[in-house]
């Protein structure tokens, strides 16, 4: 199944009842799949007039307490920032998927990971965070998509899954959980959703607090949720991490798969390298990464991203100067080949000249 379709079907299996979208490459197949599939399960499919509208349709739909989601790509996600901030402020569960493409601006439509900051640090205004998940295979996209709905409900916070065109366009075998009856949220059981003030006081979904003390309380309440996420939701994967590793690669999403290929190749050449793959980008597995990075055998930590360096900052915050950190990145739709990552690794491992510090980030390609 194509990644985009798998994501769509995963949402259906997770009990999603509403999908709102605006066309944008490279994820339009999600909509094209759901325009047929949603009606089959009695759900709502609606193409909105813009991503600004779609973000806010999601806001309205999420207020029903049912499971709802949208998918888009980089510029479209930028247009949703206000609504995302509102949904976070109003404690609404909703799932958003960003199939990232090259930016900034109109950029291109090929795979990139340059919306990391936007997703992880908060592209909208105010003290809020999204829970951010990054799958590296189509199967994982399915699993994380389903998890996203659970986490959105658990925290009543928007959850964003970020992938790139590769995840969206790639076809891999996927398994869905048994197709018994799809379980759905029952709005009548909700103690917060808007479903008619019958025999109870009205419920107000809002983020305005004119009293700054209340507004501050709301922000700290959000912060409590984020602290809870840090305790309970950190996810990551280790690949061939062991005491022989000379170098630890940190990479996420499809980029991490490419690094796996590199690691396999290097292994066959007798060079041991491990991979730390964050699955939750927020909360970031800081302690866990530090634990692996500080191990004696590791000389260097190499961050590999399809961007000019964004996750790098979280790697720095995790490792806190305890190890030399290097960066390798390609961006704008260029997917680094295993070969170039490999030669970067070899360059770092072979103790030729003095290696540079992370201050000078190393790029895949020089300009001019």
């Amino acid at each position, binding site marked *: 199944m194509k990644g985009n379709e798998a994501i769509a079907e995963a949402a259906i299996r997770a009990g999603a*009842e*509403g999908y*709102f979208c605006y066309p944008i490459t490279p994820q339009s197949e999600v909509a094209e799949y759901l325009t047929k599939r949603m009606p089959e399960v009695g759900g*709502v499919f*609606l193409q*909105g*007039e*813009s991503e*600004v*509208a*779609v*973000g*806010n*349709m*999601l*806001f*309205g*739909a*999420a*207020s*029903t307490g*049912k499971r*709802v989601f949208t998918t888009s790509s980089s510029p479209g996600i930028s247009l949703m920032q*206000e*609504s995302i901030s*509102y949904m976070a402020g*109003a404690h609404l569960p909703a799932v958003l998927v960003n199939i990232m493409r090259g930016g900034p601006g109109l950029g291109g439509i090929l795979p990139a990971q340059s919306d990391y900051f936007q997703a992880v640090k908060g592209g909208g205004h105010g003290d809020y965070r999204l829970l951010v998940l990054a799958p590296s295979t189509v199967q994982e996209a399915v699993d994380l998509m389903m998890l996203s709905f659970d986490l959105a409900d658990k925290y009543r916070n928007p959850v964003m899954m970020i992938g790139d065109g590769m995840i969206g366009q790639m076809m891999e075998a996927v398994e869905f959980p048994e197709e018994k009856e799809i379980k759905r949220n029952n*709005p009548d059981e909700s103690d917060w959703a*808007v*479903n*008619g*003030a*019958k*025999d109870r006081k*009205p*419920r*107000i*979904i*809002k*983020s*305005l607090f004119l009293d700054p003390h209340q507004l501050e309380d709301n922000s700290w309440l959000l912060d409590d949720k984020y602290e809870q996420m840090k305790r309970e939701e950190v996810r990551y994967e280790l690949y061939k991490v062991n005491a022989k590793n000379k170098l630890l690669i940190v990479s996420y999403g499809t980029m991490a798969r490419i690094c796996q290929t590199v690691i396999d190749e290097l292994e066959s050449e007798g060079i041991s390298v491990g991979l730390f793959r964050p699955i939750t980008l927020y909360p970031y597995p800081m302690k866990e990464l530090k634990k692996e990075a500080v191990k004696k055998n590791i000389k260097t930590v190499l961050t590999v991203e399809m961007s000019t360096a964004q996750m790098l900052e979280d790697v720095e915050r995790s490792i806190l100067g305890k190890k030399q950190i290097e960066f390798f990145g390609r961006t704008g739709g260029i997917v680094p080949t295993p070969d170039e990552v490999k030669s970067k690794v070899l360059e770092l491992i072979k103790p030729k000249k003095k290696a540079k510090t992370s201050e000078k980030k190393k790029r895949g390609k020089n300009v001019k």
Partner: protein
Amino acid sequence: MSSNSNVIFSRPEAMHDTVTHYCPGCTHGIIHRLVAEALDELGVRDKAVGVAPVGCSVLIYNYINCDFMEAPHGRAPALATGFKRMRPDMTVFTYQGDGDLASIGMGEIVHAANRGEKFTTIFVNNAIYGMTGGQMAPTTMPQQITTTSPKGRDVSQVGYPIRMAEILSALVTPSYIERVAVHTPQHILKAKKAIYKAFKYQVEGRCYSMVEVLSTCPTNWGYTPQEATKWLADNMVPYYELKCFKDPEKTEGF
């Protein structure tokens, strides 16, 4: 009063007994009452959800006694769409100012109306940005002085006021569109009927409905409440024609 007296006019049930934050004489209050009465009369208060705008009426949920969502500025129709599509059994309305609906929210209102979303919009046109301190709105009258048109709205520079009822009526999708005003008791009674009808059509699942209500903003217009009603009658009513522009009873389909 004696015990066999009966109250023939009182606060509707769907309204909280709260003093509003509106300025003295601001007709937002009247329009709130009309909405509450429609909910009462149709018996839908307990399955109603309002969408509050950003504007002076952002706190409408403190006054009308039903569930509410608070939208980003201008996006109430998108929230209403998302909600109503998921819960067609509920009664959904947006309450929006002219800055909210006719300026930043132009895209959302036109498209919601065009898709024929089955919700109701109460559009309060007071020809100004009330909440932010009296800036020019797209609905501000020619020559009207505001904080961002200190010499009066210059139509050669920024065009003529936008007439939303006319624009939404230019759409082919059936809908109910009427413009009313609330500056005299007579007009208020007509407004009441229009608002009632707008909700009724929704409850019947007929169409999108929008009532544009000409309203006063004594504070930012710089008039007393009385002067403001007169200014509305003299300036706004001639430009913003009061009538039913579109009614599914009369024009069904394309």
